[in-house]
């Protein structure tokens, strides 16, 4: 099949079939999960069919015009990187949706669950295959929205709502930063097309030398960091654990949180190789790796522990992408990519185990779990494989990529020179030590030790095959990738690294590669890890007491303060801004207008006396005189009817004046509109008997007259200045319309041409306003019957 069609189908089938889910659910009831898994399988096969296309580091691009005037296309780009992500997304998608069949109870709202899962999968696929930054942004924000819906799946749990809101606020706001970054990038390069930049060496040079380089880099990186829970943006991920566990496994460990990594890898050729890239990406990565790894200790919810470990593991990957500035770039990129794949396998596996434990033991609290190895032997084995892989124990896949991380850290240290020769590897080992300790804790807390006397159900057993097989499959992959790394490396990692590096890469990953520096570091990690594990509980206790003593040293504290205070502040603001009486608003506006206009004109007004012009033709003078008379009449005539007639006289005089002001179209319109509005006025006014007469006290009169006179004077000064050219005349847009009226629109009447051609959308808006007004009037009259 044509690759363009394959990709388009893979992306949009989940979208389309998600709409069909409620209908299908009517037919096959609770087996709807298998329908969803089947859709994921189709997408998976479509993605797999593209693998030969990119296996040697080639790429493929195709596009269809979407908004050509803005340079925005529906444009797909297939290379190793997008294929790797496509495989992870759809592959884990199949596993998760099958597993959900066992996990989700039959009483749950299943159609909604699978619908959002499918929509998420489609958005994610669309994002990784997007060749256009605008398209990427749209799918990016779609993943934020679908994630929001899935975290908040249990709508009536306040924690779910809190977690969903937090994740949406952080990731969607980050997405907006990213959009700003894309626009900056576009202003530098002149294109929204990513491959066009990647394949153009000189354009990349231009970007890196541009004065807006740093702005673009930082903005885009904020987007990546918020999505991948890096740096201060990590706070949303632990709260996102309120989602159903399969969702956590899918979105918040294997796929969505890797979107930031994807973005970093995607723009890697554009920004990497600079000092700023290293400091920003690796700096954020190293700090996040250590802090999140450390904070994992005090988590007592197994999913929260996994969430912190995800943050920390993603930070490894970030760090390695950042390393490329100061070393042979291939190493870091390949290691990062390999770890990305491995992390998807072992973390999804661990989440599935967490789901099994929560499902069977009805708790996720590690203080209440323990000793389940006898009751759940299969789960225990799977969990051990996953956890040991995360800890970096040979011969599992986590060991391989962690070795590569150590190796590139050593090289990094050498490249930077003393004192970093020691510091960088030491920091890397510290990250590894934390990982080792909490990986062991995960196993020990659930399966080892003694079974608690109370709090657990009496009969706990391994779950049904529906839940165990997906987890076992992932465990199998962990071992397979560990023992025979070449399967993953040659088919997935090499093409990906090649596409990130924009040149072919060849890697040799072996389980045993001699007694190297990285192996020594691994051994140190194990020794220190065991040492730290023995002190695990006291470290956690210290963290808790620190948190109690200084609750404000926390990013969550700031977030809660900002969000909760925002409600209070806005409430005060709106009750201050909208006190009720209309007169208050009018006064505020008028006073503001007077001040804003008066200040500049007071400075200019010197000398305008000389240029006053009273040369008026007698007939003009008559028009002006009658206008003022009519306006005064509308104001002072005590009865409504004469006042309204006076007002319409004013309107007709205005149209007369328009003729004199060389505006025949306006005169015509004004006559028509005035006639209509007089009719409407009269129709309504005869039905309103004049019962109320305002008593104007002298003080009230003085105040209002003073305001009116100030407004009038300001307008007068403004006009006298404006019509005399004392204000410097700025370049008028009108010249454009005058010159282009005939050649572009073929019209003679320039005003008409502006209205129907150049500003056609304004006129469309105007027509909509008229329609809405008509509807409003109709409904106002119509609503009369209901109130009685």
């Amino acid at each position, binding site marked *: 099949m044509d690759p363009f069609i394959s990709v388009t189908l893979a992306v949009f089938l989940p979208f389309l079939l998600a709409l069909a889910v409620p209908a299908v659910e009517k037919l096959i009831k609770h087996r709807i999960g298998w329908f969803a898994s089947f859709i994921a399988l189709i997408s998976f096969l479509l993605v797999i069919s593209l693998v030969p296309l990119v296996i040697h580091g080639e790429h493929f691009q195709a596009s269809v015009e979407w908004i050509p005037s803005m340079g925005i296309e529906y444009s797909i780009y297939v290379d190793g990187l997008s294929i790797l992500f496509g495989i992870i997304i759809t592959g884990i998608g199949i596993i998760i949706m099958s597993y959900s069949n066992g996990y989700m109870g039959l009483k749950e709202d299943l159609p909604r669950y699978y619908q959002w899962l499918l929509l998420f999968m489609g958005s994610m696929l669309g994002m990784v295959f997007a060749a256009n930054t605008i398209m990427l942004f749209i799918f990016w924000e779609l993943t934020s929205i679908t994630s929001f819906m899935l975290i908040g799946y249990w709508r009536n749990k306040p924690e779910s709502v809190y977690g969903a809101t937090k994740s949406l606020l952080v990731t969607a706001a980050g997405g907006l930063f990213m959009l700003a970054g894309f626009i900056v990038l576009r202003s530098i390069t002149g294109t929204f097309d990513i491959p066009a930049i990647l394949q153009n060496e000189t354009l990349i040079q231009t970007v890196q030398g541009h004065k807006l380089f740093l702005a673009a880099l930082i903005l885009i990186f904020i987007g990546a960091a918020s999505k991948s829970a890096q740096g201060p943006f990590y706070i949303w991920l632990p709260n996102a654990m309120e989602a159903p566990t399969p969702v956590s496994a899918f979105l918040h460990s294997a796929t969505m949180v890797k979107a930031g990594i994807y973005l970093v890898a995607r723009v890697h050729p554009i920004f990497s190789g600079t000092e700023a890239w290293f400091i920003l990406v690796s700096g954020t990565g190293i700090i996040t790796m250590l802090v999140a790894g450390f904070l994992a200790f005090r988590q007592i919810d197994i999913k929260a522990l996994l969430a912190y470990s995800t943050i920390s593991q993603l930070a490894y990957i970030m760090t390695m992408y950042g390393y490329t500035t100061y070393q042979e770039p291939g190493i870091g990129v390949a290691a990062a990519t390999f770890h990305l794949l491995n992390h998807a396998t072992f973390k999804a596996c661990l989440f599935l185990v967490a789901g099994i434990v929560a499902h069977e033991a009805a708790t996720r609290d590690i203080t209440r779990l323990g000793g389940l190895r006898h009751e759940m032997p299969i789960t225990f084995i799977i969990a051990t494989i996953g956890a040991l892989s995360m800890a970096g124990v040979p011969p599992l896949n986590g060991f391989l990529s962690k070795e590569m991380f150590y190796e590139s850290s050593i090289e990094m240290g050498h490249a930077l020179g003393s004192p970093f020769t020691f510091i960088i590897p030491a920091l890397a080992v510290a990250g590894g030590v934390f990982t080792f300790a909490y990986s062991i804790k995960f196993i020990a807390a659930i399966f080892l030790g003694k079974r608690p006397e109370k709090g657990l159900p009496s009969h706990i057993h391994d779950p049904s095959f529906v839940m165990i097989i997906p987890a076992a499959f992932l465990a199998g992959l962990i071992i397979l990738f560990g023992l025979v790394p070449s399967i993953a490396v040659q088919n997935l990692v090499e093409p990906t690294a090649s596409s990130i590096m924009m040149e072919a890469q060849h890697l040799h990953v072996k389980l045993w590669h001699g007694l190297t520096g990285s192996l020594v570091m691994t051994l140190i990690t194990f020794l220190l890890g065991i040492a730290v594990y023995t002190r695990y509980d006291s470290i956690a206790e210290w963290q808790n007491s620190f948190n109690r003593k200084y609750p404000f040293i926390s990013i969550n504290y700031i977030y809660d303060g900002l969000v909760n205070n925002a409600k209070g502040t806005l409430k005060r603001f709106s009750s201050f801004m909208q006190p009720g009486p209309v007169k208050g608003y009018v006064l505020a506006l008028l006073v503001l207008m007077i001040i804003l206009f008066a200040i500049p004109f007071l400075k200019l007004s010197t000398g305008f006396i000389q240029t006053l012009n009273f040369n*008026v033709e007698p007939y003009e003078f008559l028009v002006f005189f009658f206008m003022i008379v009519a306006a005064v009449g509308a104001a002072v005539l005590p009865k409504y009817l004469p006042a309204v007639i006076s007002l319409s006289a004013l309107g007709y005089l205005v149209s007369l004046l328009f003729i004199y002001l060389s505006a025949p179209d306006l005169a015509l319109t004004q006559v028509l*509109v005035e006639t209509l509005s007089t009719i409407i006025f009269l129709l309504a006014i005869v039905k309103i008997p004049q019962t109320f007469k305002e008593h104007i006290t002298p003080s009230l009169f003085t105040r209002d*007259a003073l305001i*009116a006179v100030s407004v009038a004077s300001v307008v007068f000064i403004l006009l*006298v200045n404006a*019509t005399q050219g004392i204000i410097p005349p700025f370049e008028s847009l009108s010249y*454009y319309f005058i010159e282009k009226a005939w050649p572009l629109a073929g019209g003679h009447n320039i005003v008409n041409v502006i209205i129907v051609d150049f500003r056609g959308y304004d006129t469309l808006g105007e027509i909509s306003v008229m329609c809405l007004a008509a509807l409003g009037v109709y409904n106002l009259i119509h609503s009369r019957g209901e109130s009685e």
Partner: protein
Amino acid sequence: MNNTVLSFTIAVLFGIGTFLILRRDIVRVIIGLSVLSHAVNLLIVSVGVFSGKDVPILTHDEVVPTNTIFSDSLQNSVLAPLLNGTEPTQFVDPLVQALVLTAIVISLATTAVIIILAYRIHEEYGTTDIQKLKRLWG
């Protein structure tokens, strides 16, 4: 066009309109709004008018040279014309007229809605006093 009497007339209309919208009687407020919208329309049109200029209607198929350099090019992502040099043309400003034309029509819609609203308010509450309405409201 430098006509001080016109400026004065517009200013007076503004003053009267302002005084009226500060009233308590809702019908007076609506009349005030109409007076104000007339004043605003006249203000905008009058600043685009210069004595000795023609009505902005071409007499035959022609390109009016304005000695202006246009560079509205999509390739260079310039979505508005850049104007360098402003040779005076023989026309009054058509753009302000187009704006005011829209405004006149919109003000008809506004007037229609609020006058009917006033009528309905009177029907529901039996008063046209804004102050009293506020008390009814809360």
